[in-house]
């Protein structure tokens, strides 16, 4: 059991769970009012990007994968979140 708790994968999971709770609280704090909130949106999207990257690198084991796989997955994340934030800010 101790080895499970000390396992790097469990530490990554603890981090992911914590930021999930934090991002939910950010949304509740800043977004209960039915208003556009650029700070909340930027924060929760960046947190989502970091969480996705953590899952891809550590759970999907891409950190040990060949360069083409690292570049493809990181490229997808970077491209996606750049587009999402660009469309969001362009529409304000």
């Amino acid at each position, binding site marked *: 059991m101790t080895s499970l708790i000390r396992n790097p994968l469990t530490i990554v999971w603890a981090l992911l769970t914590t930021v999930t709770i934090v991002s939910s609280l950010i949304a509740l704090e800043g977004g209960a009012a039915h208003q556009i909130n650029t700070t909340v949106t930027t924060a929760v999207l960046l947190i*989502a990007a970091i969480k996705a990257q953590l899952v891809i690198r550590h759970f999907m084991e891409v950190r040990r994968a060949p360069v083409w796989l690292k570049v493809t997955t990181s490229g997808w994340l970077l491209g996606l979140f750049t587009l999402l934030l660009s469309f969001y800010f362009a529409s304000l």
Partner: protein
Amino acid sequence: MTDVAEGFTPGVGKSRSDDNRRDHVPGDSSMWFFVIGDLLIFGVYFVGYMYFRGQNHELFLQSQVRLNLDIGAINTVMLLTSSLFVALGTEAARAGNRVAALQRFWIALAFGAAFPLLKMFEWIPEICSGLTPGTNLFFMYYYVMTGMHLCHVALGLVILCFILRNLKTSKAPQISFVETGATYWHMVDVLWLVLFALLYLMR
């Protein structure tokens, strides 16, 4: 090496050094092409959602408030926990520990199965209160994207069952098969993390 470990495919998970190997594609390469294709397809949906949201922020904000953030957040933790146990199970399988691998994949399956169950507790009250895909563009995106994701979860649960069967009954369980299924399951997790931020959290 234990009798448990002896049951595994030769050359698989024989030593700790395997954990430190580099340039290893986890699972079948063809699964990765599927995963990348799926990520791109969902990416188009995500960007489309953001584009149409930009056309009518007010409608999306008013609709979004009617979602159940609590269930959304709990479901996120369910998938993350399921993914953790799949990753731990894969690690155990690679190390040749069949008993630990089986236990961890069973736990992963339980957490994964909680997702569609909770989704029903979320969807049914919403549908009963008149929120359907025809309500407006937000709910159309909401049901289509979460519905497509739920189909992926369902397929993922079936794959987890096949992994369990492979670990339990096969004389020489194939680590490549375990890794391939795990890769798919983690992709389902990644997609949900983006969906959760777009549908429930952003303002």
